[in-house]
């Protein structure tokens, strides 16, 4: 690996993601046979992303803007390896903390304490590592009194707090945040954005999706404007965001 490559955290090269339309979801053998005979399989394909090129360097902060269904979340999922590209290539150097939905891995029947461990391990940490950071997480989430309570009795704000605390416990190389700050009260949101800024100044690379243009402006230097799965414009936030806003008028 050359020095230049070391600096590149994420490289997306000509990547496309293809879905079958929801109406075409075939999940029974009979349907499959019928469609096979009629040659209707894979008939209504739909590209959620098409020919995306993107290079993100260490310490950069990128916002993804665009209408609903433009492909913002799909692109984040592609980078976090949840989705595989249909064409093209995605290379990621370094650890990722994805916050596509806070507390996605929580089991409602288990207590907060048990969930912290499972959730941490889902992110690839060891049990020992979680034990060492347990107090820190609980303190950040401020849920000391509710540790023995099953998560199903938590409010969505409490759940989000816990999820955020677990996800940001370690300083990841890449932090992916998708509209997760909409929940939680004002005080917690403030602490979240403080923590994110702290991470950014510590060299973490941020990928951020939000419909709040204020947050985008304060957190991200770069922005990508997506529409119908294609990149319309990418560059500095101060250039991209006004262009996107103008198109909405």
């Amino acid at each position, binding site marked *: 690996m050359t020095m230049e490559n070391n600096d590149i955290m994420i490289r997306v090269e000509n990547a496309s993601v293809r879905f079958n339309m929801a109406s075409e979801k075939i999940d029974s053998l009979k349907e499959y046979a019928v469609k096979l005979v009629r040659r209707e399989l894979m008939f209504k394909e739909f590209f959620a992303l098409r020919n995306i090129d993107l290079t993100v360097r260490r310490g950069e902060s990128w916002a993804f803007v665009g209408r609903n269904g433009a492909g913002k979340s799909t692109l984040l999922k592609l980078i976090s390896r949840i989705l595989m590209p249909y064409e093209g290539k995605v290379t990621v150097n370094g650890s990722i903390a994805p916050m596509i939905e806070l507390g996605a891995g929580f089991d409602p029947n288990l207590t907060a304490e048990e969930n912290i461990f499972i959730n941490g391990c889902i992110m690839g*940490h060891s*049990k020992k590592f979680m034990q060492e950071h347990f107090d820190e997480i609980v303190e950040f989430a401020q849920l000391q009194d509710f540790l023995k309570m099953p998560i199903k009795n938590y409010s969505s704000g409490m759940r989000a707090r816990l999820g955020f605390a677990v996800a940001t416990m370690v300083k990841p190389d890449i932090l992916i945040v998708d509209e997760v700050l909409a929940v939680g009260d004002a005080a917690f949101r403030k602490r979240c954005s403080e923590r994110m800024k702290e991470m950014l100044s510590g060299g973490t690379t941020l990928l951020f999706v939000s419909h709040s243009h204020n947050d985008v402006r304060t957190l991200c230097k770069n922005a990508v404007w997506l529409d119908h799965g294609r990149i319309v414009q990418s560059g500095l936030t101060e250039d991209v965001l006004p262009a996107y806003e103008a198109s909405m008028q």
Partner: protein
Amino acid sequence: MGQKLKKRLQIFFRYKDLMMLLVERDIKLRYRRSVLGWVWSVLNPLLDMLVKVIVFSYFFSRNIPNYPVYLISGQLMYQFMRESSTQALRSIPDNAAMLKKIYVPKYIFTLSKINSAFVNLLYSLVALLLVMLFTHVKFTFWWFMIVIPIAELYVFCVGLGLLLAAGNVFFRDIGNIWGVVTLAWMYLTPIFYDVDILSPRVRLWMPRLNPLYMYIRQIRDFILLGSWERYMLTIRGGYVALLMLGLGLFVFAKTKDKFILYI
């Protein structure tokens, strides 16, 4: 190839704690709010055997020495196969919410379900031991050899579980039909009846075609006869288990990247 395997193993070790926690969770949730807790894992196979001994001994037990041990040894092997495969089958859709939001090696969920069932099997072995002591089976060192067929069955079930889990993502019919398949498999395996009551033709093919029989027969030979006369079954059983594991791994690996589009 070697590099790839090394990376896969690294990933597995990274997530092994997760797998253990998931197994722990399954066991915890199974017995939460129950007074006897894990004792049920021993009690269940015992009670199950008791009912069947009462019902079936009238029909089948005449030619079978120590019918209770004969029955429970077959039953616990079958039970593990059924439980692990049925749970593995649903492991991917059941964790859809998580798989859509964070990267986790998908087989971890399937494997954790199989391992939960395996822990249950270990509890059942306590039940088996109790019945053996109660019926005065003579102790021999052959008893320890049962780890061989149990290990073979485990490998077989991992393969089967992966295969079913992958298949069920694309065709949910498999989930519906599997209950019937396992039921048929139970009747086709000499669990509560003696293989000798079958016609000679079936008797000839049973040890060749029914993997479950290969493993159950070995266990019974070890604990009841104290012999390893049918070592061919061990060889064939191992061969079949590895074949199933290979098939399961192959199908799962080939299709796993498409799961997300179907869950």
